[in-house]
């Protein structure tokens, strides 16, 4: 039939400035990427404050290291369900 959309048109929804979402994996990738960007912004700002106001303290480096370690563990956990 002529009115049926071609196969490539039915695969996904194309929107300007938006990545094509064709599977749950794509959606999970977008959600995780947004979360990662927010986390990275927070981490940069937080590290800046520690370095500027608390750099002479012995606790600054372990605190930043702990933040990076825990965050990495949680991000690995969050993505571990998708293969």
């Amino acid at each position: 039939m002529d009115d049926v959309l071609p196969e490539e048109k039915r695969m996904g929804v194309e929107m300007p400035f938006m990545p094509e979402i064709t599977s749950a994996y794509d959606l999970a990738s977008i959600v995780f990427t947004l979360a990662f960007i927010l986390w990275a912004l927070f981490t940069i700002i937080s590290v800046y404050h520690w370095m500027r106001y608390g750099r002479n303290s012995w606790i600054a480096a372990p605190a930043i290291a702990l933040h990076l370690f825990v965050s990495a563990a949680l991000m690995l956990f969050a993505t571990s369900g998708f293969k």
Partner: protein
Amino acid sequence: MSLEFRLDAGEHVKRAVRKHWFVLILELLPFAFIAIVPLLIPALLDFVAGESGTAVRILEMLTFENGWVRLFMGLWWLILWIAAFSTFTSYYLNEWIITSRRIVEITQHGFFSREVSSALLNHVQDVTTDVHGLFPTLLGYGVLTVQSAGTNEYFHMHGVPHPQELRDIIMHEISALHPTRTDMKL
């Protein structure tokens, strides 16, 4: 010790204090409770919906074998971790410094907002301590209020450890700045 303000000639830092560690624990506890709330949802659903087919199907999906559950829980805990770490950062960057001439209050109001204010000890009119409640009494923390004369300004140090000891330090430094009439005659 590197300071955010310049010490005058002959001025010494007598004590630098932050809030008591127990106050930090109390501030972090809500994050721990919020972290486990999603884990209670399956039990709650099981209790409410019982053996209905829909509930059983949903419960079968709400396991850590499900990638979406892992993603949600991982991001949920990540957001809570960020909030908790932000609380700790704020706790650590807030400080009171007592020098031989003044009291300096350093307050971090969130990110990109830091306030450093001073009260000269020779303007201090009244120093009050308040240890109120079970945990403050047992663990030895409370509120130290310093009233500065002239400006009628108050410094409230909430949750500081051993406020009586800090009051004694402040009073000692004030008395060192204001020699008694007997001393002056000598």
